[in-house]
């Protein structure tokens, strides 16, 4: 459905509006990561090609399990998609990228869910692959049905025999031996999930057979689970992934998964023990020595509307959080447009920094604000305290390394 105002505006306004519109399309913080990659707007070296490390290890070590940890908006999905693209290009391993949050309701995610989702993707791929014999195709279809039942549940009519102890008085009455009943077995991906014991082993056999078929076509399989970082509580994360990952390791399927940032700190560190390697997607340093953030803006055509000074300002106040960088760049252009400016000026950036900072400020109590002030003054920060981990999870505090924590600059500007 076209926008009402989509016609070009006349005269000087045509150029102005087109310039702003083109810029806004390049700076969309909610654009799908795949679209951004496909449009060539991603600066692949932003995290020093971390995706190459992830993909390379998954390729070389079948069955390895790596955890990618980063704060909200740090660019995890982009790195995973780049890793998947690299694996496809190399041709050895077949990557399955699964955004588990888009497949099912995470709040009801339970043990077996990851396997169910992987099974569906794998079976679909095998069925679509060329070169399957008719015999194999039938076999795969049966396996697909089994996996679907495991994933989505099944409804069947079952014969229930009557108990022999049932006593009927009337000798003339023909005693039925039983009755048909409708029985529903819930699946792993249906919501709400009942609290039943999981039978992970029941999915093992179908998966093994599917993998067998897949390995005839493709050498190795890598599954990429995105979205698990939304399981903010470490115990919930482990309850979901532990058994599934064990099975996948046994099946020699490499795994890349996102995890909550709490996995790096305090009680959350138990998560890391379950993985061969933990990669941390830290916030990008915004000091002048590093021009990575500026390059991100430049690659998207930021200099069309941003001066060098405003570029540096936007980079600084983003704190090196990728989504915040894109948001500030977009919002400051929007502000300039609404204010009838021809390009982004200091007042535009100032307004949007205040907006972002205020959004981080809301909900903070006096104790938390004191923690932030103390961190800013003395760089002192106790990462083992749950309340402080909360500040990291909600991005009020940013982690640049395991020892370098700082208050988000936009938030700092309004405290």
């Amino acid at each position, binding site marked *: 459905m076209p926008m*009402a*105002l989509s*016609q070009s*505006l*006349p*005269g*000087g*306004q045509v150029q102005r509006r087109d310039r702003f519109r083109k810029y806004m399309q390049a700076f969309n913080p909610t654009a799908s990561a795949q679209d951004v990659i496909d449009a060539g707007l991603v600066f692949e070296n932003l995290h020093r090609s971390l995706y190459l490390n992830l993909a390379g290890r998954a390729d070389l070590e079948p069955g390895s399990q790596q955890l990618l940890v980063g704060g909200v908006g740090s660019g995890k999905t982009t790195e995973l998609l780049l890793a998947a693209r690299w694996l496809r290009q190399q041709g050895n391993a077949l990557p399955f990228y699964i955004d588990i949050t888009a497949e099912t309701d995470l709040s009801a995610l339970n043990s077996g869910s990851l396997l169910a989702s992987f099974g569906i993707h794998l079976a679909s791929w095998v069925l679509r692959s060329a070169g399957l014999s008719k015999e194999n195709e039938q076999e795969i279809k049966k396996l697909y049905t089994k996996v679907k039942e495991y994933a989505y549940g099944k409804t069947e009519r079952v014969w229930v025999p009557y108990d022999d102890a049932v006593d009927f008085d009337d000798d003339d009455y023909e005693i039925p031996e039983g009755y048909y009943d409708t029985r529903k077995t819930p699946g792993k991906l249906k919501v709400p999930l009942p609290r039943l014991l999981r039978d992970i082993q029941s999915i093992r056999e179908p998966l093994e057979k599917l993998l067998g078929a897949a390995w005839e076509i493709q050498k190795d399989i890598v599954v990429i689970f995105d979205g698990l970082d939304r399981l903010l509580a470490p115990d919930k994360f482990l309850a979901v992934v532990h058994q599934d990952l064990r099975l996948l390791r046994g099946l020699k399927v490499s795994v890349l998964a996102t995890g909550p940032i709490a996995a790096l700190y305090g009680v959350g560190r138990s998560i890391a023990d379950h993985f061969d390697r933990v990669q941390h997607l830290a916030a990008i340093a915004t000091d002048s020595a590093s021009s990575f953030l500026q390059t991100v803006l430049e690659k998207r055509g930021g200099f069309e509307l941003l001066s060098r000074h405003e570029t540096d300002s936007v980079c600084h106040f983003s704190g090196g959080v990728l989504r915040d960088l894109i948001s500030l760049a977009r919002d400051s252009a929007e502000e300039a447009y609404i204010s*009838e400016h021809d390009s982004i000026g200091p007042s535009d950036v100032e307004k949007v920094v205040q907006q972002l900072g205020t959004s981080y400020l809301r909900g903070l109590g006096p104790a938390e604000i004191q923690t932030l002030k103390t961190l800013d003054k003395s760089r002192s920060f106790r990462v083992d305290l749950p309340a402080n981990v909360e500040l990291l999870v909600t991005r009020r505090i940013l982690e640049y390394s395991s020892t370098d924590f700082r208050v988000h600059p936009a938030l700092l500007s309004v405290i």
Partner: protein
Amino acid sequence: MVSAPREGRPSVTLEDAKKRAHSLDMEIHARIGGFSLESPHKVVSAVRAYLIRRAGEISVENNPWKFLKFSGSSEGAWLITMGPTIDRGDTEEHFHFDTGARLSFGLTLQEEGSKSRLLSFRYQYNLPDGKSPRFLRFDLNRSAHADPLQEPLCHLHPGLEEARLPFFIHSPLEILDRIFFVIDKNL
């Protein structure tokens, strides 16, 4: 000397002309009573959206986002306006056409529940220099004049302040349609 009217010959006295003008005025007045518009807020919204789309179709710069204004309610009476109240020449607040013409208007509405009715309007379309007439103005007065022949309740000024030709009630968008798609188009 004018002969007395007789059957088959139309009456041409000034008094008769005034009577006919009065009848016409009464008819228009009755139609205003039954002419209902959306709420003032919706009328503003519709006029704004209309002007923004029209602005997108012509070359010269316009900014209806900024220059279409309205007053809040004053005992249920609202004013919607664009351009200066008194036209003394071109300003940035006018709506401009590629032909060189300009438009300013003011309309007042009486809010009635979720609807409104017209109280008055004036749409002044100034033709570009060198064109005749100098301007066209569509006016709706608040009440009938004692001499509706000279000043009909709803009228068009064909470039003369003292000449007024009867005009029928139109909604804001209907008048704008005539200005954009009939008058300016055929300039």
